[in-house]
């Protein structure tokens, strides 16, 4: 099935609830080819052009779910939502970035999905469109399963508030070439609310928000002045984030060990704060 518009796509989904929508297919088709997934039907979203761009709406950007990573990594998008652009630029090799989409990254909900911590830090919401109309759900609610995707629903748009302030995404994959994140940290400043928001990806099934650490460090920043902090504060913030996001035990695989992971998260959070306040 190859619908040409969002309405058509939603109708098609309603008619054949077993169909699986496919956009870039970088995760889905791999699973299909490996025989892990046998969908009844595939619903190709490639022709739904309205999902492939973005528009402005009430101080927020409404991003189409079909935005590719390479599109998001371009400078015009980076001026809008820098952290999302940085995250998109680190996704896989160029071949994957050229077809992989923002919506796919959210729906796959892989723990190491690179855009997920950014969306969590930005407190983005998604628009889910079904036969009964559209509804707005916070990304974190969707990912944690608090408010899951219902049968016949399509993820159409992602609403991201425009903060007009520094944002950072940092990812450690342990090598120079493209790699899955061992840990990633996204940090955004929200000067209007005098808040720092931070999310840690890849260390848990969903991105984690160290809320106490955020509040503490927001209190350390001189918002009206230079917006800088003492290196000691950055260091402490890193450790605060790491201890909040990486539990003492219970790490599934022995490598990387808990201590190692904590150290990585702490370094990433410290550097992220440093770059955001530069």
């Amino acid at each position, binding site marked *: 099935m190859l619908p040409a518009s969002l309405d058509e796509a939603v109708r098609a989904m309603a008619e054949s609830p077993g169909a699986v929508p496919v956009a870039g297919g970088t995760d889905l088709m791999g699973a299909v080819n490996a*025989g892990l997934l046998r969908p009844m039907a595939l619903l190709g979203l490639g022709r739904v052009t309205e999902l492939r761009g973005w528009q402005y709406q009430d101080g927020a950007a409404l991003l189409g779910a079909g935005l590719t990573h390479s599109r998001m990594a371009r400078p015009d998008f980076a001026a809008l939502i820098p952290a999302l652009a940085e995250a998109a630029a680190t996704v896989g090799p160029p071949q994957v970035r050229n077809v992989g989409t923002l919506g796919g990254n959210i729906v796959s909900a892989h723990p190491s999905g690179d855009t997920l911590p950014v969306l969590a830090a930005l407190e983005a919401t998604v628009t889910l469109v079904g036969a009964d109309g559209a509804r707005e759900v916070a990304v974190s609610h969707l990912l944690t399963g608090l408010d899951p995707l219902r049968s016949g629903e399509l993820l159409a748009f992602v609403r991201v508030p425009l903060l007009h302030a520094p944002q950072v995404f940092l*990812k450690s*994959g342990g*090598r*120079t070439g493209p790699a*899955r994140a061992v840990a990633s940290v996204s940090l955004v400043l929200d000067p209007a609310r005098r808040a720092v928001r931070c999310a840690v990806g890849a260390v848990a099934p969903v991105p984690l928000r160290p809320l106490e650490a955020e509040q503490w460090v927001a209190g350390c920043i001189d918002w009206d002045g230079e917006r800088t902090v003492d290196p000691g504060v950055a260091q402490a913030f890193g450790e605060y984030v790491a201890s909040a996001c990486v539990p003492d035990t219970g790490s599934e695989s022995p*490598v*990387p060990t808990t201590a190692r992971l904590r150290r990585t998260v702490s*370094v990433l959070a410290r550097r992220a704060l440093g770059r955001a306040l530069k």
Partner: protein
Amino acid sequence: MSTPSSPSDAAGATGAAGGNGETTLTNLATVREGAPGSATGAALGGLLTASASPPSSAATPVTDIDDAIRAQRVGIGVSALREDGVAKAMGVYPYAADLWAEGLLWGALARSPFAHARMVSIDTRPALAMPGVYAVLTADDLPPGPDGLPNGAPTGPYVADRPILAAEVVRHHGEPFAAVAADHPDTARLAAASILVEWEPLAALTDPDQAFHAPPLHPDGNLFRQLPLRFGDPEVVGEVVVEGMYQVGRQDPAPIGAEAGLAVPRPDGGVELHVATTDPHGDRDRIALCLGIEPDRVRLVVSGIPGATADRDDLGFQATLALLAARTGHPVKMVLTREESFLSHPHRHPALLRYRHHADAEGRLVKVEAQILLDGGAYADVSSEVLASAAALAAGPYVVPHVFVDAWAVRTNNPPSGRMRGEGALQSCFAYESQLDRLAAALDLSPLEIRRRNIMATGDLLPTGQAVTCPAPVRELLDAVADEPLPPLPVDRPDAEWLLPEGPAGAGDPAAVRRGIGYAIGMVPMLGIEGEDEVATASVRVTGSQASVICAAVDPGSGFATLAKQIVQEILGVEDVYIAPVDTDQPAAGPSARGRQTWVAGGAIERAALMVRQQLLQPLAARFAMSPELLSIKDGRITSYDGVLGVPVVEALEGKDLWATAQCRPHPTEPLDPETGQGDAFVGLGFCAMRAVVDVDIDLGTVRVVEVTAAQDVGRALNPRQIEARIEAGVTQGLGLALMEDLAVGEGRVLAPSLVGYRLPTALDAPDIRVAAMIEDRDVVAPFGAKAVGAAPAVVAPAAIAAAVRAATGMPITRLPIQPEDASV
């Protein structure tokens, strides 16, 4: 890599002077059907003509390469291009997975989900009941063992202990126990999955240390080989003693293409196999034995090989494929998934090495004591040979008067280990080079100085008592890499973008990056060791203006076919040389492993070509009334010693059909003494020196290799560009082992058998690789004086990178691959 266009690129080429070859070389870069490796076309018809593009379109994008070639000469010492290079770059080269035959069935294997388990019962009826399934085979369908019970027709290169299909007991995760042929690949896989097995899981032996005392996993016991090496006086003690324990992980060859093949039944009850093997004759004999038929009724045709760094397919795959075809009477094709490929083919031996180096106050080595433990996996494969290399080269290319080594290779329930570029030599190299760095630190000497004080030269003794009679220009190699200028620091080039560890736009922080420089030297044995009968046969035929070479030496991408062509061009002055596709109807040339083909098969081709040359020159000599020795062939002309008389080669060949077949058998070696490890076990040794420059993010422990500079002892550079490519390949593979490649195993089960879980170096991870020198010190016993070049770079690169990380971080670095926690401060 630049395209050679000036005569200086062909430095060292003896036949590189003069030049009237411009007009005759235009056809070199075209894609020719029946190119080496594409044996498929002839037997299966239509495939090649369908997939290979016409020469005209293939030649269009390579005009500048074409021009570059035209400016060159042919023969030895020239950087000739691979015959199949353009086809491979354009994606039209047929590999084993592209084979097709009318009415073929698809094969699939059922594999063990356990690392160690007993099969209480096996029920194949659900699989047979599925529509479209033609045959389901288990160990019961193979020839029975000596006691009349099915034993899975065990096979192996030295010890026949690995069953084709497991009988009763499975000993590693992914070991096949049943094979299915069906009319669709999915049906075959589903049928294989539907076979009911009642398993009784057994405790998996995964720690090689435990193998000595654990109950035997196999009737042959858990110890593949124990090799003590006693050289000198055990009582000697040095003034400075350093000790270390080193660990090498499980590297996978991860070939670009997974195992694939096609078997076609023959009317005489035999079978014809189209597979990407590197040892066609050895595999043919072993398959015939497993099937219980005569070797002559099995024919192996070597198809396009998608990457091999020594052994490629495991024999179980080929033999079951043959058996399925023989049973069903249909052609059967089998293509393994990447997951199966990771489970079944041999990996590099994981190793545990304990070393103690004694030196005097000046830093001269007095004694080396070592204990080496190799994890051979579930079956013997080549573990005994790998162990001998590791033990005999345990002291490295250094002069050490007293050496004591105890080495063991043991059986475990881990994935199978086998041959892989520099096997054995690599594990030791990482350990002895790490020890030298430790010693340098203890004595407050530079890593270069400690190596210079102990370095080996021609005539020195190996710890096996064998004198190194081949050229050993190790000092020159080390000097060559040490003299090369270092790559600029980012501070020197503020405008250039600095690629940090963690990659572009990554988390790397320039303030946390430390640069380190490390050196390593190493050596590898060439050819089979310990009395292995090395022999190859080749035929050369010349008709009219074309020469053909029939030699069953497989070119798995190593460039041997190109060398074979250059050898014939050099000796006969014929430019158009056709290398016949390889099959087992040709006389044997042995496996393409241990860097032996250039020497053994190359030597056979040289001799055959020289015999043809004699046949060609004799009548001319009679006509000129001089002996044939006074005639030479150069630039496509036969000329007399005084240059007065001459005739073009093409003219002399007119109407002639000359044939010659010759064998090459290098001088024999002897097994190492089982009590003392003494003996002349090696035919020759190759050496390599490297300098690695790394950037380490000391907070995250991420390493980026900035540059690797290599100097290699090549004997004689037959094709300099090809050698550079081999060095680049070896360094990149070595970098993989040093930083990221490790097949993770838990309780004997491979945890992530995919290219996501098993990380290979990408273009961003690969460093700048520079060749500081190819030292051409001819090995008089080798044909053309050329040494094998493929393995040495892969052996030395991990040690050099580890040394550089050590220099950058001050951490000891005792395991490969280097983990972030080892490299963060």
